[in-house]
C-alpha cells in the first residue's frame, strides 16, 4: 500500500512526487514511457537571460531528486483503467493492479492530428515526434522536412531541427476544412476545429502577410532567435498557400502547395511541389484526460485551456474523493507551470494524508503557479488566464450546488 500513486512522470508528476516524499509520504510513479520527464524531455530553447532550457537536464534533475527521496518508479507501465472501490482507487496496468487512497493524474497533453491527403505515408509525423526523435533519441527525422501548421510549438521545433542540422524547407498551413464537410463528418471537423482554432491557421490566413510584419511575429522572432546561432527566419514561411497533398510512392517524397480561394478550392496553376523526405503535422495540443473521464470527473470545454478539462480546484483536487490532477491535463501550458501545479497537488495529497499545517504552504504554492504563469516564456494560448478563471468559476458553482443539495 502506498500513501499516493502518481500517473505520469512529466514535470507535474515528478514535482508532485518530490513534494509528497518531502512530506514523508510513500509514493510510486507510473509511466508508460521508458524514462522520466514526459514532454519536458524534448524541450530545448534559449531563455531571455541567454541560458538554455535543456529539457533532458531538467528531467534528470527532477528524477534524481525524487529517487534520492525514496520515490519508486515503474516505467514501461501503461495505466489502462482506474476505478473507485471501497474508498480506494484501483489502478490497472498490464502487469499489476495497484491501490491507493490518493491518486494523481498527471498524464499531460497530446497533439491534435490534422488530416492532409497523403498523411499516412511513412515519413509523416506529428511535430512533437520529430522533436523527440531529434533531441531525445538523437536520430534525424529526415534530411529535409516540411512543417504543416504554424503555432508556438511548431515554430520552436523548426528552430530545434535546424539546430540539430536538419533542414526545414518550409513552415506552411494545412488546407482548412470546408463548411460542407461539417455535414459529412461533423465530429471530426468539430474536433479538429476545436483543437486547431486557437493555435493557428484561420487567423494567419485572414491577416496574411501583413500579420507577418506585426507584433506577434516580432515576438516570435525575438523568442526563438537564439542570440548566437541559427537563423530561424531562414525558414520560408508560407501563409498564402496551403499544403493540398503529401506525395510519395512508399514514403514521403514531397508536398504540393497551392493557393486556395475563399471557397476552399485550389486556384488552378498555383500548385508548386516542395521536395522533402519527412513532413511534420502541427495541430496544436489538447489535455490528455481519458483517465479522468473513466473515473467519472465532470468535464468542461475551455478553449483557452486547449479543450475539455476535468473540473478541478486551485488546490488541484477533482470533485472525486482522493483524485487529483496537475499539469497539462488541466490545460495546455509550459513545463514550469506544470511543475508548479505538481507542487500544489503534492501538498494537497500530503494534507489529505493527515500531514498538518500545510494550509499556508498550499496558499503560497498556488500563488507560485500564478506568478510562474505570468512570467511564462512560452504561452500556448494568449487568454490562458481567462481560461483558468472560467474553470475556477465552474468549480465554485459546483461547490455551491453540492452544498445546497
Amino acid at each position, binding site marked *: 500500500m502506498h500513501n499516493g500513486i502518481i500517473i505520469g512522470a512529466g514535470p507535474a508528476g515528478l514535482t508532485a512526487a518530490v513534494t509528497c516524499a518531502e512530506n514523508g509520504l510513500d509514493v510510486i510513479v507510473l509511466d*508508460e*514511457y*521508458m524514462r522520466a520527464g514526459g*514532454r519536458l524531455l524534448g524541450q*530545448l530553447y534559449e531563455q531571455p537571460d541567454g541560458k*538554455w532550457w*535543456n529539457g*533532458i537536464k531538467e528531467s534528470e534533475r527532477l528524477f534524481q531528486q525524487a529517487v534520492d527521496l525514496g520515490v519508486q518508479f515503474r516505467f*514501461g507501465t*501503461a495505466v489502462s483503467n482506474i476505478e473507485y472501490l471501497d474508498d480506494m482507487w484501483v489502478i490497472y496496468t498490464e502487469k499489476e493492479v495497484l491501490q491507493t487512497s490518493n491518486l494523481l493524474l498527471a498524464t499531460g497533453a*497530446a*497533439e491534435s*492530428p490534422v488530416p492532409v491527403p497523403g498523411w*499516412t*505515408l*511513412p*515519413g*509523416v*509525423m*506529428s511535430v*512533437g*515526434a*520529430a522533436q*523527440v*526523435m*531529434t*533531441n531525445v*533519441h*538523437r*536520430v*534525424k*527525422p529526415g534530411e529535409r522536412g516540411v512543417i504543416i501548421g504554424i503555432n508556438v510549438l511548431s515554430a520552436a521545433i523548426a528552430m530545434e531541427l535546424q*539546430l*540539430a*542540422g536538419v533542414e526545414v524547407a518550409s513552415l506552411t498551413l494545412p488546407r482548412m476544412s470546408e463548411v460542407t464537410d461539417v455535414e*459529412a463528418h461533423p465530429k471530426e471537423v468539430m474536433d479538429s476545429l476545436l483543437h486547431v482554432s486557437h493555435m493557428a491557421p484561420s487567423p494567419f490566413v485572414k491577416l496574411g502577410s501583413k500579420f507577418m510584419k506585426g507584433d506577434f511575429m516580432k515576438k516570435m522572432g525575438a523568442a526563438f532567435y537564439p542570440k548566437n*546561432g541559427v537563423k530561424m527566419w531562414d525558414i520560408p514561411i508560407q501563409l498564402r498557400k496551403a499544403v493540398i497533398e503529401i506525395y510519395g510512392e*512508399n*514514403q514521403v517524397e514531397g508536398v504540393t502547395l497551392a493557393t486556395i480561394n475563399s471557397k476552399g478550392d485550389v486556384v488552378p496553376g498555383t500548385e508548386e511541389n516542395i521536395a522533402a523526405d519527412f513532413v511534420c503535422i502541427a495541430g496544436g495540443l489538447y489535455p*490528455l484526460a481519458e483517465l479522468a473521464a473513466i473515473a467519472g470527473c465532470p468535464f468542461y470545454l475551455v478553449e483557452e485551456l486547449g479543450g475539455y478539462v476535468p473540473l478541478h480546484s486551485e488546490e488541484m483536487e477533482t470533485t472525486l474523493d482522493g483524485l487529483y490532477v496537475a499539469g497539462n491535463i488541466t490545460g495546455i501550458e509550459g513545463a514550469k507551470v506544470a511543475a508548479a501545479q505538481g507542487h500544489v497537488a503534492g501538498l494537497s495529497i500530503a494534507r489529505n494524508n493527515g500531514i498538518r499545517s500545510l494550509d499556508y504552504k498550499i496558499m503560497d504554492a498556488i500563488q507560485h503557479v500564478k506568478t510562474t504563469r505570468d512570467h511564462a516564456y512560452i504561452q500556448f494560448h494568449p487568454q490562458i488566464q481567462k481560461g483558468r478563471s472560467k474553470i475556477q468559476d465552474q468549480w465554485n458553482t459546483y461547490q455551491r450546488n453540492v452544498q445546497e443539495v
Partner: protein
Amino acid sequence: MTDRRILDHPILGEQKSQKEISFTFNQKEYKGLQGEPIAAALLANGVRTLRYHEESGTPRGIYCNIGHCFECRVIINGKQGQRACLTPLEEGMVIESPAPLPTPVRDWRYENA
C-alpha cells in the same frame, strides 16, 4: 549509417555512448543502441515503414512517437500490438511487421463502400 544520428549537438553536446547491439526486423539483421526505442533504431537504419495497413496493405510508420496513436504497432518476440516508439531495444530482439489481414476488415459506411 551513422549520419542519421546526431552524434554532436551544438547545445546538447555529444551523444552519450551506448552499447551497440544486433536485432532483426522482418528477418533482416540490423544494429542499434541498447535501450533506445525500436522506432529510433530502425529510423537510424533508414527504415520508416513499420507495418502495412490491415485492410489496404499500404505502408505505415511512426506518427506521434510517444505512445498515443498506435500507428507503430509491431510484433516483438512473437507478441503482437507492441508500440515500437515505446519499447526499448534489446540484444537479439526479433521484430516483425504485422501483415494485412487475410479476411479484410471492411468499412461498411455507405460513403466509403
